[in-house]
C-alpha cells in the first residue's frame, strides 16, 4: 500500500503532463474535429466534419467534469423538438449525442460573429442593430409558435453572418445548460443573470413563456440603445435584486424606442408585449418612420411598483441564499448589494442585524449575537437566518467547553428548548436548508430524541443528499437507538462523502464505537471478512484515548488471518 504513494505521485504527474487537458478528442461520434472556434463556461465549440455526410458542422462539446447522465437524456429529448425548428434565422441542429462521458450537439456551421462580439467591438449603426433584433424576435416568435421558448436569449446566442443575416442558436438548451451549471460543485457563479426575466429570477417556472424571451429581447434592445446593461452589478445577488425591484434608467434614446424597450422590460409578463412578433412589429413601425404602440409607463404605476419591490427584494435574498448555498456568503453579498435609499427599513435593518449577529457569533461574542438576532427577529419575524444564528449562539453559550472531547457540559434544558424552537421557526419560514435541519437534528439528539433527530437528518438529506452533518447526525441517532449496524452504514457514507469529517475526538469516538459494534455483530454472525474490515476502520477512526481500544485490538487479533 505504502509504495503506492510515490507511484501515485509520479503517475499523476505523468498523466497530467499528457496532452493538454482541453485537447479535443480527435473524433466525437461520427464527427472529426478540425479546430476550436469558441468556448464558454460549460462547453467548447469546434469546427468539425461530418464523416458520413461530408459536410462541415459546428460541434458543441459539453466539457464540464460534473456532467450528469440526466443532462444527456434531456438534451436528447430536446433534440427531437429542435429538429422541427427549420427557420432561416435559427441555427439548425443535426444531432445530439454522446461519446462516453462527453455529450455533444452537432449543428449548422455559421460563418459569422456573435452579437456580443459586435457590441463589444463598437456597435453597428443603430438601424442595423434594430433590424437584427427584429429578425431575432421574428425567429423567436417562430419557435414560440412551435411551443418552444428559448429561455436564454442573449447577445452571445445571436449569430450574425457577414451579409447581416441573424441566426439564433442554443435554442431550448438553456434549461440543460443551467442545470449543468447547478451541478458543478465548484463555487463558480451561475451563468450571466443579466438577461433573466423576473419570473426566471424568482423561479416562477409556470410563468416562463414567450414573454420571457420578449424580456431578454428588451434587455438586448436596451444594450443597443444605452450601450450598457439595464441592471449592472458585480454579483448575481445584486443583479437579481435589481431585476426584481429596480426600474431601469431610461436608455437615453428617442422616446418611441425608449417606450418599446421599457415595455419589453416590464416586470410583470402580462404588461410586456404579448408576443415576440408584437415587439418586432413595433420595431418595424419605428424603422419605417411610423409611431410605435408602446407608451411610457405612468408615474403612478412606477410608484406602486417600487412599493411592491420591497417585498420581492426579500425573495431575491432568499434566492441568492438558495443559489449560493452558504448562509454567510449570501448574507454578505446581500449586505453589500443593498441600495439603502429605497428599501424597506425594517427588513433591511433586520437583515443587517442578523449579519451582525452572525459576525458576533463567529467572534464568540455570544450575548451580543443573541441580542442582535433577537432584535432582527423582532423587526422581521420571517428572517429565517436570524433564528438560526440565535439558536447556534444559545447552544454555544450553554456549553462553554464546546469542542472539547470530555467533561463538556451539556447545554441546559432551557437553552436547548429555546434553540429547538428557533430552528423550528427557521425551518417554518424557509427557505429549505439542509444545514438547519441537520442542526435541529443534532439538538434533538442532545435532548435524547433520536427519532426526531433521524427525521430531521432525513429531511436534510432530501435537500442535500451529501450533507455530511446530516449523515453524521443520523448515524449518531441510530447508535443511540441501539442500531450500531445502521449507524456504521451512515458513518461509512460520511467517510465516503467527506473523508476528513472525522477529525474531532468525539466524532471519532462515535464512529469507532459504531464500527466496533458492527464488527462484533458481524463476527458473531460468522462474517469474518466484514468484521475484520469494520474492526480496522474502528481502530483507524478511534480517538487517542479510546476506552475500547484494547477490546478492539483483541477482536482484531482473533479475526486477523495468520
Amino acid at each position, binding site marked *: 500500500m505504502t509504495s503506492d504513494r510515490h507511484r501515485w*505521485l509520479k*503517475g499523476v*504527474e505523468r498523466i497530467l503532463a499528457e496532452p493538454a487537458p482541453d485537447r479535443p478528442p480527435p473524433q466525437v461520434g461520427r464527427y472529426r474535429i478540425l479546430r476550436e472556434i469558441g468556448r464558454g463556461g460549460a462547453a467548447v465549440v469546434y469546427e468539425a466534419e461530418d464523416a458520413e455526410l461530408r459536410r462541415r458542422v459546428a460541434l458543441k462539446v459539453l466539457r464540464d467534469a460534473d456532467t450528469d447522465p440526466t443532462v444527456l437524456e434531456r438534451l436528447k429529448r430536446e433534440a427531437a423538438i429542435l429538429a422541427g425548428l427549420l427557420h432561416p434565422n435559427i441555427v439548425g441542429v443535426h444531432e445530439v449525442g454522446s461519446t462516453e462521458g*462527453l455529450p455533444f450537439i452537432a449543428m449548422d456551421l455559421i460563418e459569422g460573429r456573435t452579437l456580443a462580439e459586435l457590441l463589444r467591438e463598437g456597435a453597428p449603426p443603430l438601424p442595423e442593430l434594430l433590424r437584427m433584433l427584429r429578425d431575432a424576435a421574428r425567429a423567436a416568435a417562430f419557435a414560440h409558435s412551435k411551443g418552444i421558448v428559448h429561455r436564454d436569449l442573449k447577445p452571445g446566442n445571436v449569430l450574425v453572418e457577414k451579409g447581416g443575416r441573424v441566426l439564433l442558436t442554443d435554442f431550448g438548451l438553456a434549461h440543460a445548460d443551467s442545470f449543468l451549471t447547478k451541478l458543478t460543485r465548484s*463555487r463558480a457563479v451561475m451563468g450571466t443573470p443579466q438577461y433573466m426575466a423576473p419570473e426566471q429570477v424568482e423561479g416562477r417556472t409556470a410563468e416562463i413563456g414567450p414573454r420571457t424571451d420578449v424580456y431578454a429581447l428588451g434587455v438586448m434592445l436596451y444594450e443597443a440603445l444605452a450601450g450598457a446593461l439595464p441592471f449592472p452589478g458585480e454579483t448575481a445577488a445584486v443583479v437579481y435584486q435589481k431585476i426584481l425591484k429596480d426600474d431601469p434608467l431610461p436608455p437615453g434614446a428617442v422616446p418611441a424606442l425608449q417606450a418599446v424597450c421599457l415595455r419589453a422590460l416590464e416586470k410583470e409578463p402580462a404588461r410586456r408585449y404579448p408576443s415576440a412578433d408584437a415587439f418586432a412589429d413595433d420595431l418595424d413601425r419605428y424603422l419605417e418612420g411610423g409611431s410605435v404602440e408602446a407608451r411610457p409607463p405612468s408615474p403612478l404605476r412606477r410608484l406602486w411598483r417600487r412599493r411592491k419591490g420591497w417585498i420581492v427584494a426579500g425573495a431575491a435574498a432568499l434566492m441568492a441564499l438558495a443559489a449560493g448555498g452558504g448562509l*454567510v456568503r449570501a448574507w454578505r453579498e446581500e449586505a453589500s448589494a443593498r441600495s439603502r435609499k429605497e428599501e424597506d427599513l425594517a427588513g433591511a435593518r433586520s437583515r443587517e442585524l442578523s449579519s451582525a449577529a452572525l459576525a458576533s457569533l463567529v467572534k*464568540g461574542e455570544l450575548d451580543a449575537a443573541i441580542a442582535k438576532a433577537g432584535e432582527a427577529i423582532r423587526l422581521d419575524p420571517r428572517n429565517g437566518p436570524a433564528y438560526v444564528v440565535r439558536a447556534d449562539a444559545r447552544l454555544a453559550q450553554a456549553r462553554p467547553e464546546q469542542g472539547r472531547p470530555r467533561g463538556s457540559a451539556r447545554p441546559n434544558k432551557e437553552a436547548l428548548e429555546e434553540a429547538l424552537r428557533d430552528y423550528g421557526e427557521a425551518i417554518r419560514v424557509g427557505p429549505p436548508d439542509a444545514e438547519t435541519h441537520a442542526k435541529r437534528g443534532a439538538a434533538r439528539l442532545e435532548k435524547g430524541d433520536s427519532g426526531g433527530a433521524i427525521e430531521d437528518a432525513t429531511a436534510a438529506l432530501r435537500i442535500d443528499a451529501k450533507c455530511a452533518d446530516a449523515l453524521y447526525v443520523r448515524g449518531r441517532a441510530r447508535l443511540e437507538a441501539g442500531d450500531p449496524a445502521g449507524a456504521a452504514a451512515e458513518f461509512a457514507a460520511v467517510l*465516503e462523502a467527506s473523508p476528513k469529517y472525522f477529525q*474531532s475526538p468525539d466524532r471519532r469516538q462515535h464512529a469507532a464505537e459504531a464500527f466496533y459494534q458492527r464488527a462484533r455483530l458481524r463476527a458473531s454472525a460468522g462474517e469474518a471478512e466484514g468484521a475484520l474490515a469494520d474492526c480496522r476502520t474502528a481502530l483507524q477512526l478511534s480517538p487517542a484515548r479510546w476506552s475500547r481500544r484494547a477490546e478492539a485490538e483483541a477482536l482484531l487479533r482473533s479475526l486477523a488471518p495468520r
Partner: protein
Amino acid sequence: MAGVTILPMPADTTLGGSAREFPSTIWSSVLSLRDPTDPSFAATLNALIDRYWKPVYHYVRALRRVDVEDAKDLTQQFFARLLERRDLERLSPDRGTLRGFLKTALKNFLAGADRSRKARPARAFAFDEAERDWADAARAAPELTPEQAFDREWACGVVMEAVARLKARLEADGKAVHFEIFRDRSDGAASYDELAARYRMSPKDVENRLTFARQAIAKILRELLAETMEPGEDVERELRYLLSR
C-alpha cells in the same frame, strides 16, 4: 451502546462551516491559528496537523537517520511546542505559504530543541504508517535532504488526498470505470489500445474517459492547494512544484 455518551456537536457544525477540510475561507481561517480563542482555532489546527504531521516526521527522519524513537519524540514535541510557544501567532500572509512557515518553524525548533524534558504529546500520530512511508521514500531516493523529504511527503499527501477525492466523486457519479482507467494509466502508462482491450471499449472511449478524469483531478488538486494559500498566490506554480517532487 455502553460507553457512548451524547456529546455536543463540535464547534464547527454550529457555525454552518466545516472542519472536514481546511475551511473554505482559506487563508483567513489559517490566520485563526494566531488566536487560540478564535472559535475555529481547534478545527483549523486539527486540519493543519492532519496535513503536515507526516511531512514533519519525514523531515526529522531525514535529519536523524538513526533513531526512530527520537524522530517520533521530536515530531510530537514540535507540534506541542508550536502551541506552547505560540509560534502560530507570528503567522502572517506576508511570510509566504503555510508550508514555508512550518518548515522555518521546524528548522528553528530543531536547532534549539530543548531535549531535556518530554513534551506532552500534541496528538497521537500513526507513526507506524509514517515509518513505512518513510522507508519507502528512502528506498526510492536515498539522498533526500530534510527539506526535500518534507516537500516530497507533503506532495504525496496532497496527491493521495486528491486521488481519494477523485475516486469518491467519480464513483458517486457512476463513473467507477473512469477511475479504474485513470489508475491503470497513471500506474503503468498502459497504452490506449491496451486499456481499450482491458475495458472492452474503443481507444477513443478510453481517451475521452481519461480526459474527463484528468480534468477532474487537476481541478481537485487546485482546490486542495488553494486551501492553504493566500488568495492571489500562484496556485499554478505551487501545482507545478508539487508535481515535480
